[in-house]
């Protein structure tokens, strides 16, 4: 699947390697390697089929087609596509997992009251 293109979408190509803290207020598509942390409070993160992310992730929507290692927190939803390989705990309000996706970790569905209470 190709990346959705829009004016507010930042892309990290498959030859790019980033180590450190990533934060922003636009959607992010990662098809390269990222190690550290990613914070996109009101935006979405997509890990493309070639992407490899080793980071704690906070975003509104998290879509994974590649590899993701680290705990993730989505304020809206998490989509694990069939090629996804995820190692880490997932906290979200909604989740969809395609057949073939691999998950090693906890799935914690949080209601809005949970998040407000900081659970």
């Amino acid at each position, binding site marked *: 699947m190709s990346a959705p293109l829009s004016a507010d979408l930042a892309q990290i190509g498959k030859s790019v390697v980033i180590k450190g803290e990533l934060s922003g207020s636009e959607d992010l598509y990662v098809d390269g390697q990222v190690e550290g942390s990613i914070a996109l409070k009101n935006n979405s993160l997509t890990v493309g089929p070639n992407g490899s992310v080793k980071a704690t992730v906070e975003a509104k929507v998290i879509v994974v087609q590649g590899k993701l290692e680290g705990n993730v927190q989505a304020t809206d939803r998490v989509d694990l596509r069939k090629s996804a390989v995820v190692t880490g705990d997932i906290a979200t309000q909604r*989740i*969809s*997992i*395609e*057949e*073939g*996706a*691999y*998950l*090693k*970790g*906890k*799935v*914690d*569905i949080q209601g809005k009251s949970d998040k407000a209470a900081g659970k």
Partner: protein
Amino acid sequence: MKLFRGSSGGTEAATPQPAPKLTRRSSGLGELSRVWESETPLTVLDLGSTSPANIRFFVERSHKIYSEDLLVASTEPHLVTKDEQGAVVLDSRRFLADNLVYPAAHFDVVLCWNLPDYLDESLVRPVMGRLWSVLKPGGMLLAFFHTKDAGPDSPCYRFHIVGKDVLEMQRIVLKREARRGPTGAIHTAINDGFRLQRVFNNRHIETLFRDFASIKFFLARDNVREVLVVR
């Protein structure tokens, strides 16, 4: 205990295709359903292949679900080592350093499915020991064992919970990189799936779970014994 690891059959298979699903009734699951319906949020560990159906089943009931595919984890090449006699084995300490890393007495239920039948011999007892420690006292573990009529080519299934006592079974088709297993073509994997490693009899099963407080057998018609143990 019948061992199958010596037989051959490691030819390359075609690209994996989604396998059809079979339905089976599970008395062990039916017994556990009384636990699912409790108001108290449970912490459940699913050791089979990642199952969207199982994750949905538990989150809809406000339980916490952990998913960890130990069979795939056992195909990691770095686990291969040799014992004192020079035989190729898997390093159980390393395996347990990478997998099943949870606090003691953390889970209410562990869904083991058919893991013991397909897991490498060197990992079976250490894994069962770790599962005992991560289960809460009174916690339950469900496992399936083939009967003596099963052969080495008996397919390894993933299990999806679709009802109170109903499972869908889907033959596991391994991704290409995992097919050969850590120690070569015939050790863990067969063709594009996992190889049945052995058949436990009742006494072996009782020995395997000897540290647990109780054990209950359910016989089924499809050459499978279901076992529900309580810590």
